[in-house]
């Protein structure tokens, strides 16, 4: 399986959706870490700086992690 995964990686067939979801997980972890360290909620720019990406890339990754109807449930409950 490792070999197949390596083949898939090297073949350049990693899908954008997967890589964005991985980035969204890193965003979530970084947000938690920075919140704990600074005692306040970090800004997008602070999260992006910690991950060494642009804030725009953080936005793109966040969208990938969205279940289409999730906001519908969280907003008014």
């Amino acid at each position, binding site marked *: 399986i490792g070999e197949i995964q390596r083949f898939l990686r090297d073949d350049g067939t990693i899908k954008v959706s997967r890589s964005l979801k991985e980035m969204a997980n890193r965003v979530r972890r970084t947000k938690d870490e920075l919140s704990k360290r600074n005692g306040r*909620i970090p800004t997008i*720019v602070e999260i992006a700086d910690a991950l060494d990406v642009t*804030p725009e890339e953080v*936005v793109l990754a966040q969208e990938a992690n969205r279940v289409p109807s999730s*906001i519908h449930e969280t907003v008014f409950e």
Partner: protein
Amino acid sequence: MERKKNVMNLEFSARSENESFARVAVAAFVSKLNLTLDELEEIKTAVSEAVTNAIIHGYEEDASKQVRISACYDDEYIEVLIEDHGTGIADIEEARQPLFTTKPELERSGMGFTIMENFMDSIEIVTGKERGTRIVLRKNLVKDKAVYN
């Protein structure tokens, strides 16, 4: 350190698959401002409601039609205009009522305007039957300043 006004204009086909694109475009445009992810989420949700309305009510998903967005910001506020040249709204007071909807089959029926009002600091609506709809959403950025005065 004053920030000069930054502006972008966007136009896209009235297809539901473009709703997520529009939301990301606006969010990316303002992402260098000092916002938290939660604050950005409010803006995205409000924009999303206005864009969805333009696509499904204004144009009834006629993909040959174009939705227009114009966004700008400076030090003090973010403003996002969402515009369609579709059916327009005959009675806007009624349309703004929570739970009022002309498409009850949709999820979260009738809460679009209520969400926009609650997540943004101001909303301006220009509309009329057969005249299309223009929504201007504004978010103030200077709340924190007031606290320190």
